[in-house]
């Protein structure tokens, strides 16, 4: 299966290598570098490459390439999914997944990789099993380690691997028992020039933060589970129970995890919380253009729209922007040609407006396409699909936990074509 892994930074340095079978020279990465050179954008590097003797499967996460080498047939998604899991694990351990952090924790990272694969086949990928074997670093421990020469290797054996609930650590204890669930919905939409919806859907996720003592067995039920169309679950959820009763019954992992993701069935119309009026014109002569954007509330269920932000990828010929915003600030990055207008809270009385002129490279032809606007927004305490949690019950433990549910609606890939 997975033969070797190379971590490569943005500028093309290999700063970590790990081999699970015999060693493969890092020169194999040259094929990758060649392709990377050609693809201007790192996102455009094909995730699977073929070289004379190996296949290279890579992902791009946090400005890093995780490049794995395989020699024989293997489902590419298997490798890709695993690499993402590795990146997730780093994130989980170190708070972020970046070159600096990995270099700082080289030994821990190496040990993690060692445990996650055996001979190229995934062995322990559950974060709580790993944490039992290799403790994540924290400030206190690194101080202690410095004084005692200790390390992060756990001195216990990975008993979690033997459990049939491998996602939950044994012997969890908390003084405050709490379980929080965040229902986060993202609106993916494409609006066309006139504001009509070309395509819109809601993707939701239930993020949980569960800090409960012992082995609680939770049941989460919804007022309107019929809304949920396509769901995928954390392995802890009992699927049959969902099938028959439409409740989520599970023994939660300890800490933060994604309980489920869902898609709201397409029969339901998607409420679009804001409307955008825009006009972007580039003039044939005079190398300049005009831009005007106004945003107003539409169907926001009486809640305030916050964190409003508009991002525009300008055509290459736009040199600078001279705009005035009635609310919020705008920035224009000259190198990436990205215009960001950070609005903040949407005030329905006084609609935010951004207008002004764009100056273009002299002599260059006017761009043919107007750039599309990407909208970011947040609505607190609202799940736009109308999904509601009806109750959360706990069995198996005696204490009364503190339970909380939070709703949040966000813009996902929300794009307005112009």
């Amino acid at each position, binding site marked *: *299966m997975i033969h070797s892994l190379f971590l490569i930074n943005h500028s093309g340095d290999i700063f*970590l*290598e790990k081999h699970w079978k015999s060693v493969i020279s890092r020169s194999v990465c040259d094929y990758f570098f060649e392709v990377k050179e050609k693809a201007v954008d790192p*996102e455009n590097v*094909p*995730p*699977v490459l073929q070289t004379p003797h190996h*296949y290279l499967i*890579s992902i791009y996460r946090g400005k890093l390439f995780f490049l794995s080498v395989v*020699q*024989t*047939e293997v*489902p*590419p998604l298997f490798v890709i*999914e*695993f690499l*993402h899991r590795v990146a997730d694990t780093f994130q989980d351990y170190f708070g972020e997944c970046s070159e600096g952090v990995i270099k*700082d924790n*080289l*030994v821990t*990272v*190496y040990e993690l990789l060692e445990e996650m694969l*055996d*001979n190229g*086949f995934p*062995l322990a*990928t559950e974060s709580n099993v790993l944490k039992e074997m290799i403790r994540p670093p924290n400030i206190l421990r*690194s101080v202690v380690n410095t004084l*005692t*020469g*200790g*390390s992060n*290797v756990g001195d216990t054996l990975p*008993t979690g691997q*033997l459990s*049939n*609930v491998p996602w*939950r650590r*044994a012997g969890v204890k908390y003084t405050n028992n709490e379980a929080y669930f965040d229902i986060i919905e993202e609106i993916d939409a*494409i609006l066309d020039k006139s504001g009509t919806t070309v*395509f819109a859907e809601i993707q939701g996720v239930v993020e949980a933060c569960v800090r409960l003592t012992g082995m609680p*067995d939770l*049941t989460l039920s919804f007022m309107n589970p019929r809304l949920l169309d*396509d769901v*995928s*679950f*954390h*392995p802890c959820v*009992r699927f049959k129970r969902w099938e*028959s009763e439409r409740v989520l019954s599970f*023994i939660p992992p300890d800490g933060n995890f994604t309980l489920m993701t869902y*898609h709201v069935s397409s029969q339901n119309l998607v409420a679009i919380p804001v409307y955008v009026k825009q006009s972007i014109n580039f003039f044939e002569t005079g190398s300049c253009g005009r831009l005007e954007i106004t945003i107003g509330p539409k169907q926001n269920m009486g809640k305030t729209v916050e964190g409003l932000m508009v991002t525009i*990828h300008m055509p*290459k010929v736009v040199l600078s922007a001279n705009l005035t915003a009635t609310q919020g600030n705008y920035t224009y990055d000259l190198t990436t040609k990205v215009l960001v207008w950070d609005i903040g809270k949407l005030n329905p009385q006084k609609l935010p407006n951004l207008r002004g002129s764009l100056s273009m490279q002299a002599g260059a032809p006017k761009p*043919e*396409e107007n750039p599309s606007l990407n909208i970011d927004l947040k609505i607190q305490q609202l799940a736009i699909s109308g999904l509601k949690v009806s109750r959360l019950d706990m*069995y198996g433990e*005696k204490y009364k936990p503190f339970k909380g549910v939070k709703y949040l609606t966000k813009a996902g890939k929300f*794009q307005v*074509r112009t």
Partner: protein
Amino acid sequence: MTTMQKLLQLPVNAVNIVKTVQSQVQGQEEDKSPVLTPDSGQHSWYNALQPDELRHLRSGGTGGGGGGDQEERAPLEEGGGGGSSGGTFQTQPLRHDDLKEMLDSNKDSLKLEAMKRIVAMIARGKNASDLFPAVVKNVACKNIEVKKLVYVYLVRYAEEQQDLALLSISTFQRGLKDPNQLIRASALRVLSSIRVTIIVPIMMLAIKEAASDMSPYVRKTAAHAIPKLYSLDPEQKDQLIEVIEKLLADKTTLVAGSVVMAFEEVCPERIDLIHKNYRKLCNLLIDVEEWGQVVIINMLTRYARTQFLNPNINESLLEEGGGGEKTFYGSDEDEDEDEEEKEKKAEVAAMAKRKPYVMDPDHRLLLRNTKPLLQSRNAAVVMAVAQLYFHLAPKAEVGVIAKALVRLLRSHSEVQYVVLQNVATMTIKRRGMFEPYLKSFYIRSTDPTQIKVLKLEVLTNLANETNISTILREFQTYIRSMDKDFVAATIQAIGRCATNIGEVRDTCLNGLVQLLSNRDELVVAESVVVIKKLLQMQPEKHSDIIKHMAKLTDNIQVPMARASILWLIGEYCEHVPKIAPDVLRKMAKSFTNEEDIVKLQIINLAAKLYLTNSKQTKLLTQYVLNLAKYDQNYDIRDRARFIRQLIVPTEKSGALSKYAKKLFLALKPAPVLESPFKDRDHFQLGSLSHLLNAKAGGYQELPDWPEAAPDPSVRNVEVPEWTKCSSREKRKEKKVEKPFYSDSEGESGPTESADSESDSASGSESGSGSEESGSGSESEESEEGSESEEEEEEEEEEKDKKKKKKELKKPVPETESEQSSEEEDRKIERKSKQRKSDSESESDEDEESESESSQSESEDSESEVEVKKKKKTAETKPPSKPVKKETKKEKKEMSLLDLDDFEPAPSPQVTPVNTFLSNSLVTDLEGLSLSDSVLSPATIAPSSALKNYELLHRITGEGLSVEYCFSRQPFSPDANMVAVQMQFTNSATSDTKNLHMEDVKLQSGMRVKEFPEIELLSAGETATAVMGIDFCDSTQAANFQLCTHTRKFFVSIQPPVGELMRPIFLTENEFKKEQGQLMGMNEITEKLTLDAKCRNEHAIVQRVTAAANLSRVPCGSDKECRFAGRTVTSSSLVLVTVATKEEGAAQLTVNCEKMVIGTMLVKDILLALTQ
């Protein structure tokens, strides 16, 4: 040295910071061997070293990295006493020496620090091989942290230092014998990772031993070790296959994924090894960890392709027959070739056999058990299921995967990339499946180009008459994109839509023509190419477009576009005979101002016109050629010279000019516009080979469906011998499942009791003490682990269904009755054997036979559970197996949600010895209890074959669960009451006290005799009680409250009509006489067709007696079965006759003076007999 030691304890982080800054600078240093550093000062230092150390230093090859030496810098400079006076760059040899000293020290902290540095070097790809001897010494280090790092090092460098690596082997061999399963596993893991050929025999031995280890975790590790050994020495293949075979039979989810992975790497061609394990793998699948699921699903796809028939054969037949039957998925829209192919196939199939296709139940099992995995969070699992459905499912069912695949499009872009590739392939074959999700493939300007292009591909594949206008509108947006590669792809896509869908061809062409005026050359070039392709298909029809394009030459300035237009006019000059010369005239006029590429096409046009219409264009052509003759560009001059020679006949012109027409006006084949994903589906979807569209190393071809299905009985699993002999061979099929039910336990039960899973089970078991037999309930329990009861029932049901389907195509709801006949036989058998088994298990001390016996035991008890219902009715048999079963059921239910199940793994120190003990103890107990029950058949609560109903669920009961069954025993305090046996289980952590009932609410006339109060039910205990209810011969429910010292629960008991009677004994004559008196209104007759499984007398008796508490009446004819009973309250006679006729037809007659009871009874019995 002490100062140095202190300094060495600098946190790694600090050192790393220094390192990162400097490592780039020092990059080049890596290539230099430390030994080669021309520094005499260092050499003197070497001499002070031990000779052997020096040797290893030298053998170190390209020396440790420049980055690494920074780490040491600080300590070295400070600790000048170390002897280093050299600069940073000369300290490399020293550094390693330093590490060695640290490794040799007695302090674990020093060793650890050294190991961490070494591992950091390895991680950065620096060479640390010269430290091998120093490191390997520490392999036996007590400190687990050091040890782990040493293992890491060892695995990395053992290959290069084979001799020295051998030193460590004995440590691992010792580890293999460790009582702790985790240590055994880790020893095996490291041992098998050491790639040293010499230890192959040792590894082989270790693997073999571990494969029969009782810890499933160690067995898993053994499975992992198999491919390692295989890659080291392929000669071992045969032996390894044996181990694989053995591990494939393993029944734990932990092992399943790993061993299938080993199977795939070592012997993917040995598909025959899978037969016996097929059903087990299907059933375990959902509980296997996600990575294992992927491997198993992929393997099973291949397996199914070799073993089952193509489920779509019939559909293609139907399609052939009449359009009306065409499937929903719009196969009619498929491309023509597809249709042809299908037709061909259909013919073949039609010839092969006209008989209707019936899906093999095993095939169905696979499809059903993989479906829930579409909900997995792991994209690879979802993809694996999707490809399985695509390759194996009947057309109508494939649709379910679309939603899940569309969901993956929200994931990381790499995942999208792979999924879209597969979707693209699928959409060619099964377009309809993704049509509802068309909009999910709309493209956003922020998508990476490679994703955009793939989405475009999918959209194109999805286009049909109904949605093409939407798609084209969408394409229009894309054409204005700034991403020119994407625009080009869009234009290609429009071209393909135009080719495939006749209606929009003109619209597309017009749209494309407009694009010719685009400023971007790429766009224009692409449009022209596409227009050219479209026109090439039917040039006659589109002469007006060619004319239009000719007119465009006046406006279009893009040279590429002008050139392309000229080519088109030249090529199709016969369609535009009037315009072509005129265009040439204009071009001749502007010739000198044109770009080179246009000039070439002007020459080309001139030549073609000259050949077709020389009268009008002769002079023009010569003019153009003359102009070209003096062009600045030599290509153009060359071309002009060449063409002149070719077309203008002169005396010098050679033979070629004769063929000029053929050369220039040859018919160019119309380019085919088809998806690059066409035909990719001969690769297994989701595979690397599919993605690359080339066979990757190790790829296993997906075989074609067989013409005729191979023998399905190969998948039957043998039943342990002594149970087998009892029952009829022909019912084998059924037996197969049985082992599985109990299976996961059966074998692993005993071994696992050392581990977490069944721990609680065995615990509570011994708690409830009594004569409970261990293995049965235990096995059930651990099998289902965390799942809930319904599941279990469902599963059973499903299994039943499946069985049934074998004979009856349509799915029918469950009845267990069919099994019972056989079961019963077996049961009888069992009783006689009980003692035997007992002694067997006792005497056999070695592991295997032990597990064997316990397996058979558990199987046995399993069958009991199933028989329960029936058992009572078989009059001949005294109610024997009492209490046991009851508890068992209870247990099973508890396991559903029993939290204890999830208890932390037991301390790793559990020794194997313990396991043995507990295991044999359980067997002993079981033996005891069994013989007990045989000896004292008069136990109070006969229950074995009875169906249990739930009174109070564990969750609602806050830990207290109650089940009840109709024991079919006379209720001694009051003969008019139905005895209801209740089983209380306290699975809460605290005791329950004063369990009693209150507040009985009854319909008028009904009476209840309460069960005696249970004063104390301790946590984990089970208790049984019997209550009597006089239902007044009605099926009204009895409602009452169940009270504990703290809580009250409302519960109700509703009897099936069959339980409202008790069996009586009648002779044949009496029966006839009574029947004679109950004619007319009191007689109900129904015709029915017997279920295929119950066409013999025995089965009928089984089923009827299971459905109603009746007894058999002897009967002279073997075509009739008669039963008699009386209702409990009013003692009305109930007579049942089942008369069988040809081919499963039968007639059911019920005579009863209580018409309501009669009607209900007919319904129940009918159901029992037909399903």
